[in-house]
Each structure stands twice: as C-alpha cells, then as structure tokens.
C-alpha cells in the first residue's frame, strides 16, 4: 500500500456524504474488528469490512469505491447485529455501493450486471422473470454456460416458466424507475 498523506488525501466530503446517506456516524467505530470477525465473505474481500470502516474514517474515497469488498457483501446483517458501537455496518456497505454506482466505479462488474439484469427484468415485467434474467445475465457477462448443468434438473421438476408473468401494472413499476431516473438527473 502506498503511503497515505492524511492531510492531503482525506476526503472530508466523502465522509460527510456517507454519514448523511447511511445515517451512520463513522467516528463511532473503534476498530474492534467484530464486523470482520463475523463476516462470512471476508475471505473473498480485498479489504475486510473493519478496514473499509477504517478507510472510511480516513476518507479514502477511491480505495473504497473501487474495492471488491463492497460488492461482495451480501447484506447478511451479521456485522450490524453484532457491532458494539451500534453502527449499521451493512447499511454503510449498501450506501458505498450506491455511491460507487453513481460514480461509475464498480469493480465487480458481474455482480452489478446481475443486479442490473434483475432490475431490468423487473422493470419490464413487473415481476422477476427468473429464466430470462439468468439467460440475459449469461449472455451479457459472457459466462454462457454458468449453471447450465442445473437447468435440466430444475426443468425436470417443472419449476421453470419459459414465459414471463407480465403483471397488469408493469407500466406502473416501470414508471417508478423512470421517475427515479428523472429525479436523479434533475439533482445531478
């Protein structure tokens, strides 16, 4: 790791932004490591969650937003449940993902793609079209045969619908997305 010049590289606005959007005060963290200790995904993380909190305290915006960790968090809430300082750590991670998206700094393209495909399916049909989502994801991600071996098993059980269940109000669901996007544009 490079030397961090604390006087120059601390992004105070970023700390403020995360505090405000998550409603959590990063200063409450005293680095006990309990979040890392309970985190089921920590061995996949590039930074354990306690270090994400530490980086946040030091205002290391770029390091955080380009980290894999924030995307590999599956929001199991263990950290939030056990934090002795009552910080909603999962919420902080959630907020960091939102900011990373906003700033186009997503490191884990596959996960973002999966989420986007999910939401696109939802926007289109009103509900999740499982097969469609999976196929679209495989196509876009280039993992053409991911989980392909599972397909026949599920099909055999009659659990797969090859056609989406389009709800009547799907335009209304789509409108939620468009309204949100319009609003986001307006507020920059």
């Amino acid at each position: 790791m490079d030397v961090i010049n604390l006087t120059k590289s601390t992004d105070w606005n970023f700390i403020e932004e995360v505090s405000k959007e998550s409603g959590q005060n990063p200063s409450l963290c005293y680095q006990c490591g309990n979040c890392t200790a309970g985190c089921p995904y920590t061995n996949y993380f590039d930074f354990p969650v306690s270090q994400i909190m530490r980086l946040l305290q030091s205002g290391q915006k770029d390091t955080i937003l380009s980290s894999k960790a924030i995307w590999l968090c599956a929001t199991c809430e263990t950290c939030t449940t056990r934090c002795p300082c009552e910080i909603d750590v999962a919420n902080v991670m959630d907020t960091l993902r939102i900011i990373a998206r906003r700033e186009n700094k997503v490191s884990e393209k596959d996960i973002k793609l999966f989420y986007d495909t999910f939401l696109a399916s939802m926007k289109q049909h009103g509900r999740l079209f499982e097969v469609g989502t999976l196929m679209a994801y495989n196509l876009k991600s280039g993992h053409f045969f991911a989980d392909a071996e599972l397909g026949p098993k599920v099909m055999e059980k009659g659990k797969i619908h090859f056609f989406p269940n389009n709800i009547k109000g799907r335009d209304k669901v789509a409108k939620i997305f468009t309204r949100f996007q319009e609003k986001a544009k307006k507020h920059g």
Partner: protein
Amino acid sequence: MRVGVFICHCGSNIAGTIDVAKVAAEMRKVPGVAFATNYMYTCSEPGQDEIKEAIKREKLNRIVVAACSPRMHELTFRRTIEKAGLNRYFLEMANIREHISWIGLDKEANTNKAIESVKMAVAKAMNNKPLYSQSFKVNKRVLVIGGGVAGMQAALDCADGGLEVILVEKSPSVGGMMARLDKTFPTIDCSICILGPKMVDVAQHDKIKLYAYSEVDDIKGYVGNYQIKIKKKATYVDWVKCTGCGACMEKCPAKNSYDHFNFGVAPTRAINIPFPQAIPKKAKIDPNYCRQFVKGKCGVCAKICPTGAINYEMQDEIITEDVGAIIVASGYGLVDMDKFPEYGAGRYPDVITGIQYERLLNASGPTEGHILRPSDKTEPKTVVFVSCAGSRDKSCGIPYCSNFCCMYIAKQAILTKDHIPDSQSYVFYMDIRSPGKGYDEFTRRAQEDYGAKYVRGRVSRIYPKGKKMVVVGADTLLGTQVEVEADLVVLATAVTAAPGAPQLAEKLHISYDTFGFYVEGHPKLRPVETNTAGVYLAGCAQGPKDIPASVGQGSAAASKVQALFSKDMLESDPAVAKVNENTCVGCLKCIMTCPFGAVKEKELRGGRIVANVIETVCAGCGVCTATCPCGAIQLSHFTDNQLLAEVNTICQK
C-alpha cells in the same frame, strides 16, 4: 443595603465569552449595589482578599459573587465574607460559568444573560437574612456497608482509630470478590493469603461489630445522627451454637445446590460454609435447595449437628443501630452471560466467566486448583480469553471500561501456563489497559515469558464443534478473520454496579449514575465523599477499580470519618424551615407533608396551636413552605420573598 458585586473572569473561562467589565458596569447602575468590580480569579487568595477589603472599605453588607457554580465555591466565599465580619448567608452566587460562559459562544447574548443572572442574585441577596448554626452532638459510630476488601479496610482503619464500627455484609462471609480470587496481579501473590489476616482482624477487633448475611433495611436521620435498621437474614442455623465443624455440609443430601460463592461453576450442598477461610465460619441453609424446605422432610443436618444449631423455623430479624457516619463499600456485580447469545449465553458449559475461572484455579475451589473444564472435567490445552465481554460495548448498555480485566486476563494466562505447561492461551483484546505500577511489564511477561498469544480484535461468535469450542474472531492487525479451536473459553465479563445498588442509594439519599455506580462529591477533589454529608464511598461501588485503588479508597473514607468525628459537636445547616408564629394559623398541613417528621404541633401560651420546626431534624427541603397556604413556614435562605425577588427580576412586565 449596600451590595458588593464581584465578577470573576476565571481566566478566559468566563471572560472569553462574557464581557465581564460590562456586567460590572451594569451592576453599578442597580439600586442597592454600592460596589461592583471584575477580577481575574476571584477564588484566588488575592481575589478573596479583595472581597474582604471591599467589604470594609465600602461598608458592604451583602455580597454577590458571579463566578462558577455555587456547588463548586459557595463554601469558599462564605468563609471569605465571614472572615470579613459578615454573616456567611449574606453571600449569593451567580453561576455565570457552567450556566452561561461554557454553554454559549454568542458573547452579546451571554453578557446579557450574565447581567440578568447577577441582577437576580443581587435581588435575592437583598432579601438574605443572617442565619446562625446550631450545634448538635455527634454519634461517633460508623456504619460500613459491604465487607469486601474496601469495606474491611475502612472498618479496620476506623476501628484502629478508636471508632466503633458496624460492618454489614450481605453474604454469609466477609471477603467479597477478593476472597474468590486465586492470585493477584502483578505480583502473583495468593489472594486469600493476604486477605485472610484482614478478615480475621475484622472478626476479632473489639471495636467492630460484624453483621454477616445482613442487609441495610432502612436509614433515617442525618450526619452525626443516623438510625439504621439492619435486616439479619435467616440462616436457619444458630450461629451462636454453630462451631463451623462442617459435619452438616458433608451429610447434606441436597448436593445440587447453586454455589453463590463459586458462581455456580460447581454445585454445593444446601447447607454450607461458603469457603474454608470464611469469616464468620458458620453454616447457612439455602432454602431454595434444602429438602426440608422444598419437600418438607429431611432433617439430616439437624440430626447430625453436634451442637443442635439447626433451626428450620428461624425468621429474618431487624436490628437497630445508631451511627454518625456511613461508608458505602457495596462492591460490584458482573454482567449476565445471557447478554452474549453469540458466545453461547451460558448454553455451553465450557464458556465460562473470568471469576468462574478464578475458582477453577483456586486451591480451595471446587476442583482443588486443578483446571478442569466443566463439561467433561478434562484439562484444557487451548484456552481462549475474551476481553471486553460487555465492556466498552454500547449495544450492551456498558460503554465504559471495566478497569481491571486486562490485568486479570494476563494473570490468568500466566497461571494457566503454570498449571498446564503444555497449554496455549489466546487473548482477544481491543487495547491492553495496564497503566498501574508494574502493570504493563506484567502483561508483557504474559506474552514474552508465558507465550500467551494476544490477538487484537473482538470475538464475533463461539460455537461447539465436537469437543472443541470454535472461537471466531478478528485479527485486525493482520486484517483477517481468525479461528481458534479451544477447549475452554473464558469471558472477561463486564463489571456492573452491584445488584440493588440504586435501591441502596435511594435509602442513603446519594446519587448514582446511569449505570448504578455512586456519584462522588467531585470527580477530582472529593473522590470518596458524596453530596450527602456523612456518607462516604469506597471501592467499586463508585466505579470499577482494582484492589490497591479499593484499599486506598477504604482508607481515605475512614480518614474522612475520623476528621468528621474529630469534633464532639457538629454545626447544623441553618438553612432550615422557620415558623412565623404570628401568621401561622395552625392548620398543620406542614406536618402532613414533611418528609422528615421535623414539624411538630406547639401550643402557645394563649392556647393557640402553631407549627414548630425541630431545626436539627429539618433537612431544608422546603416542601413545607410550598405546602403552607399562609406563607407562615418559610425555608430560610430560600424564602418566598427571596425566590419572588428572583422571579420579579426576570419577569417585570
């Protein structure tokens, strides 16, 4: 009326955000104010001299000091003006520091507020009347609540100084928590070996009257004259007859009784002597487990007792003692294990607390000093210590540090290695707090000489896997999750206030903080006093602390009592209620509301009935004054007219 007003700068504490010169200048315009000035440090010797000189020079007869809180320096300035020949109750203070300069940055608003606050004080001072104390006799006996090391030290110091001591201990033996410890840090000397002689001294001292297995039931009175009701709880054993031979304990068939002394780490008998060195060494029956009580028949101990001491019919007994001062050394409690469901919450027998581990280490404990884990009585080879189990944990409601866990964990890690040379200890910690003399060296020794592995991080959870307990934690220095497969896990559970601490505080009329620890008179300058005259603190009742600090406080509290008792007579606070017999209509509603029974009926010579205040009994609360419809009973120094003067100063339409 010639009022003198002294505005203190308190360095920049006040002058930084209040224009003190302007306040003084404004005061000079107030009718009745003959002199007003501002001064750098009014409480300093030259500052006090200035007041004294001004009193003489300007012929001042009421003094207002605008400075810090009267809770800080009222007594100082009362003495000052008294030295200059004024009655001490001619002083009023305006709190322009804690209540103004320290809580706002707007200098204009602060200055304005200060001006009005000083005007209020002036208005009140002009209504101040001279008050004179009465002397009353001191009962030179002292009550010590709690027979732990702090309480015993206080009791012994008082008794050695010739005072009669009443020592009340709620458990069957004195010794407290220290009697349960195996060794003590940082010297590794045997706890009971150094405590035992003190316990014997307490028992044998002719000035100490020990009530073991007793609790303070009720406290009445005031400094110098307290009436204490002590509840002697039924032991079902006549302690006059009991010789402590222990025959009953051997034969008692109720073998699965909870052992309070050993914190349940192993069972005991329903009739038991808590530990071999117990003082008094007497047996006691636990009716929750005794078959005679639970099933209505047994009687084994009664048959076996050689002196016929067993008495199943025994009742609690109330004893009255009169004392003049009280030392509270009621100790501490430990947070419940069920606060940590992620650690097993008492579901897993091999996750135990630090104090339970002490009992496993202790030669007089249930395993006779062999470390055997509770589940299968085998020797653990891997022991994990988890510090801050509840401490510094807001989610547990315990944001504070428990003070001594870091040290005893280091000690326990060392002792573990001593007992089981092929064992390995791991210590999960956040910070190592070892600021005492020789303390940090001690924690280093645990690591350097005894090989304890210190892991910097909290433990997230503990779960059983086969015969092992898997401890999942973090090593924040490595930046990773770590796992230890342990045979035994020891939690350094947080120190809490003793159970029942708030209730005892209510009986004593002393304050306690959010956590139940008793509040000292001043955090720096009055560490063993309380805000209630005659009541002193020692040991962990005031906050978590280790043995030397507790002993120090015990001695300090004792010396405070010695100083109090060095006079035969005490001066009463004259700020008590007074009846104007001319206007009292004898409705006697004041008698109905007085919390102290200080108001009595009095017949005047003409046969008219009026109220009458017994000055030494009156505590000066003023409930009677607010009750009296005709304003005939007035609390001196806080009379209706004095408070109205303040109200009228603020509220003038």
